[in-house]
């Protein structure tokens, strides 16, 4: 990841050799990459990604069919998060549910990123009228709470992970569009953009070669934070029963199922929730650090 991000900054340094701030950027970035905090944030997130990709490496228990004789076991050395009413290992269900939750959240964030970046670019580069129209559109998206946008989609297309992801994604368009717009407005007033135009660059070549790569920092930071927000929204809607149907181990659904056994088995609701909180906090922390790395 680091190499891909470093490239546009170095290119910027070459284009504008007298801009001290731009030259200093790669160095500060390298320092941030060496900081232990950055790796302490990344390591657990990489592990969660591993849960999503290779769940069976992290837990030997079957997430769907349990051992009835071992039902309602409290957390311990054998079953880290205990077992549920069917004797299924809760930790294994959390691990196997990661891919479902991350895929839905990933779908949501990609929609927000792609459509939001498009709208933000149009607003910032295609003239004043386009800006006014796009920003009003974004006002409307902000005025209809994301929760309700998801509800419309889920109602119209029947509950399921895809309608959930699309709904949450539409809700996140506005924040991406705003960040991209303000960032592009900042970058396009810089000297090297003018230089690129003078060197004969067309609108599209300048936008894609210079403006977009150099405005990606804050967008990347938002991406991390928004992934956390999407996970929260999706687990909330999953809790209400608007996501995947029951046998699937989705994080929100896991907690909703444990709700019936609140009195006898606290671990069914509490421990999967701790995982959600930890992942969202780590993503927010990653977003803060990316922000620090890019915004200098």
């Amino acid at each position: 990841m680091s190499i891909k991000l470093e490239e546009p900054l170095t290119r910027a340094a070459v284009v504008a050799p007298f801009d001290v701030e731009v030259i200093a950027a790669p160095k500060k970035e390298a320092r941030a990459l060496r900081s232990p905090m950055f790796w302490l944030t990344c390591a657990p997130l990489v592990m969660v990604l591993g849960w999503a990709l290779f769940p069976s490496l992290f837990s030997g228990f079957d997430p769907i069919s349990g051992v009835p004789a071992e039902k309602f076991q409290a957390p311990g050395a054998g079953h880290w998060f205990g077992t549920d009413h069917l004797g299924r290992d809760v930790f294994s269900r959390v691990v196997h549910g990661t891919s479902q939750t991350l895929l839905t959240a990933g779908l949501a964030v990609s929609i927000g990123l792609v459509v939001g970046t498009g709208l933000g670019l149009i607003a910032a580069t295609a003239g004043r009228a386009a800006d006014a129209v796009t920003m009003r559109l974004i006002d409307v998206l902000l005025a209809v709470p994301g929760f309700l946008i998801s509800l419309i989609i889920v109602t119209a297309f029947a509950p399921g992970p895809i309608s959930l992801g699309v709904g949450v994604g539409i809700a996140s368009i506005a924040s991406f569009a705003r960040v991209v717009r303000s960032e592009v407005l900042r970058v396009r007033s810089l000297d090297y953009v003018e230089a690129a135009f003078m060197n004969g660059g067309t609108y599209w070549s300048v936008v894609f070669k210079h403006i977009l790569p150099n405005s990606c920092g804050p967008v990347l930071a938002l991406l991390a934070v928004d992934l956390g927000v999407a996970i929260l929204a999706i687990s909330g809607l999953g809790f209400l029963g608007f996501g995947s149907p029951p046998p699937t181990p989705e994080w929100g659904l896991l907690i909703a199922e444990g709700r019936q056994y609140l009195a006898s088995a606290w671990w069914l609701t509490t421990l999967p929730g701790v995982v959600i909180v930890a992942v969202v906090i780590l993503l927010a922390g990653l977003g803060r650090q990316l922000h620090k790395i890019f915004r200098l």
Partner: protein
Amino acid sequence: MAAYIARRIGQALLVIWLAYTLVFLAVQLLPNDPVTIFLSADAAADPATIAAMKAQYGYDQPLLVQYFSQLAGLFTGDFGYSLASGQPVAERIGAVVGSTLVLASSAFVTAVLFAVLLVAAATLARHAWLKRLIINLPPLFAAVPVFWLGLVLLQVLSIQLGVMSLFPDGSFASIAVPVLVLAIHVSAPIAQVLLKSVDNVYTQPFVDVLRAKGASPSWIFFRHVLKNAAAPAMTISGITVGTLLAGSVITETVFARAGLGQVVLQAVTAQDVALVQGLVLLTATAFVVVNLAVDLLYPLLDPRILKSGTHGAPRALVA
């Protein structure tokens, strides 16, 4: 001032109209009309029933007629009819909205008070470690799912300690705990923005002057800094209306309270597009009205806004 108010109200109406139009278009873009979607829950609906129901609810009219008659309805408080119950949407929502409004508004007031207290504690803390600890609370609150916090509190308070009943019984705890759960979640963004804005105000020279004149730290914070830092926090408070609604629905479900949450769950489960459409429009209207109120309160808080358009506050024409 009059020009500022007129401009803000015009923008608010524009946003409501756009929201209505977008929702209308989105419903038209669906592969099926609301009646067919609603009846698809049953086994093979009879075409005559579908046609009769479409005629009853006006879905057989030309699109433009539907568009304008529904739009005209909005201004008279007519949000159409629920497909599932046949009741007017406004009536269906009006019957339960009171309980949700009580929950949401008490949670909102608690959240604002809580955010101010948190920021005051962080600013006035004598020890650096305490300050660091308090500053890290809002990001934590933002990361905690409402339903999980509610369930954990239920688990601890009513099952372990037995100080609260599992179902709403009108006791103080059964009212206060849901409000608290929602307020903690909503206070996070407000506290984060207020913290940042308070830090900005502290860099201004007038604070040094106050200090030099011998004002105590708490006097400076409550009498001078807080007032100057309030504008961005007010903006974000207006924006939390959406979070407040989603949070209310989830909180009501967790604590088995009556309210909008039930209507939302039923509407979605029955695929009642008309009811959800009404819910969306009502919330969008509530959101726009609250934010309009915030915008109109700005000049009272900070008369400078009418003179110059800086400070990230709404750009206004000179009145």
